[in-house]
């Protein structure tokens, strides 16, 4: 389980995260929802120790992040986390060199699923293909937790469909996923838990299924109530 507890963070004078807490379980897809600039990306970076927090605590399976944690949790940022001058297969070699959790069979499987050519240079890929490679580099790690920042934004419809397919496949099953989005409607059916964030605060945290069953509401319905009052 990933526990984010009472996290405060300031950029200069601006308070970006205010006493923010939520949890994300293994085997569930947790979605951080909020408009741009409310601190969703900052939360992910904070979990990965890519940006400092002023107070609070973040635990991964009860432990603070350390070097070995990166074999257990990974982050897929919204830009590609690999050198653009590398070819896809060179990127694979790099990953295999450094990560024990790199799973070459799965990488191969994903390559075929996304119909990517491994000899292609990353810099020459289209935006959609680049997003797929970026995703692939994270998914092919045998990690327990995956953080994905806006995996669906700025890419074409078909790439989006393919990525959505991944979420319902064995590639995600059993793992814990936290993803951010400002556009919920496309992926509403994929997610287990929604965390509504505004101005660096969690305004609501709920199980999508429970709300659907008990109150007959979709995530968008809940959001409408919360944001519009």
């Amino acid at each position, binding site marked *: 389980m990933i526990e984010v507890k009472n996290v405060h963070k300031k950029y200069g004078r601006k308070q970006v995260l205010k006493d923010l807490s939520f949890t994300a379980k293994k085997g569930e897809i947790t979605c951080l929802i909020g408009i741009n600039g409310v601190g969703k990306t900052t939360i992910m*970076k904070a979990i*990965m*120790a*890519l*940006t*400092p927090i002023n107070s609070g605590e973040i635990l991964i399976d009860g432990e603070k992040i350390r*070097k*070995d*944690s*990166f*074999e257990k949790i*990974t*982050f897929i*940022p919204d*830009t*590609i*986390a*690999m*050198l*653009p001058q590398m070819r896809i297969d060179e990127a694979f070699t*790099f990953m295999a*060199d*450094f*990560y*024990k*959790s790199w799973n070459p069979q799965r990488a191969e499987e994903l390559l075929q699923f996304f119909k990517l050519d491994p000899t292609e240079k990353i810099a020459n890929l289209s935006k959609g293909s680049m997003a797929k490679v970026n995703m692939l580099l994270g998914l092919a790690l045998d990690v327990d937790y995956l953080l994905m920042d806006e995996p669906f934004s700025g890419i074409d419809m078909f790439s989006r469909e393919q990525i959505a397919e991944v979420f319902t496949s064995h590639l995600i099953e059993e793992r814990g996923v936290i993803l951010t989005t400002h556009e919920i409607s496309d992926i509403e059916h994929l997610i287990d838990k929604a965390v509504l964030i505004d101005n660096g605060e969690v305004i609501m945290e709920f199980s999508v299924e429970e709300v659907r069953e008990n109150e007959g509401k979709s995530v968008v319905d809940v959001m409408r109530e919360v944001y519009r009052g």
Partner: protein
Amino acid sequence: MKNYLKLVNFEISRFFKLYLILIGLTIVCQLIGVIRVSKGYMDLAEKVMDKNQLSVSRFIEQYGTFSVQRFVYSEWFLMSIYIGIAILIIYVFLIWYRDWLGKNSFIYRLLMLPTERITIYFAKLTAIMLLLLGLITLQRLLVLIEIQIVNSIVPSDFRTYSYGISNIDIFVLLYPNTFTAFILNYGIGLIFVAVLFTAILFERSYRLKGIFFAIVYGVLSLGVFFAPLLLNGFYPRYFYPLEIILMGMVTSFIVLGSTIWIANHLLKHKIMV
């Protein structure tokens, strides 16, 4: 350790294309230079001797003999050295900033590697030192070739005999004769680059405010580093030379130790992507 070596290899291969260009440029620049300078001297000798009906010894009296020094202080040689130094200094900054800037954010990957983050710092530091040593070795070989070229163009009557590089004064610093001097010169270089790296990490952690921290930190480090020499300046002949050297060693270790400790702390807890 394994990851450290992999990262060193990785950092060097990233710079390698530019490095080859730099090496090519140095070689071309210096070879053209040595030919032009020695040909120029011989042309001058022929012209002057022909015009004024001088003997070789009279010409040498007036214009001096030809030694490799003449080439070493020519713009050809100095230019190639300055370019090399400039590119390395720029690369000290670029080796960090390139991972943040541009469309890719490779720094995400580097900081998410399952290895202590300070390893990245050590790897980049090693890469810079190896690149520097590579250039210096190249220069050493080049000078040997250049002496041969000079010898083939300028007849021995016109030459001051060159024993090798050690009597070319600007090389004394680059090619120390003793192991101790080697450690001293390159140790100081290493500390200097390490402090610069930590200063860069200050900026990368605190951004605008970090520039201020970096400057304060840099000045403090230099202050501590040069403290023994300053002391010696204020109280001349108060300390024995050996005492100054020992103090210098202590302050060097303080500066190097603190810079690594701070870099480790910044990378672990303060770095901002």
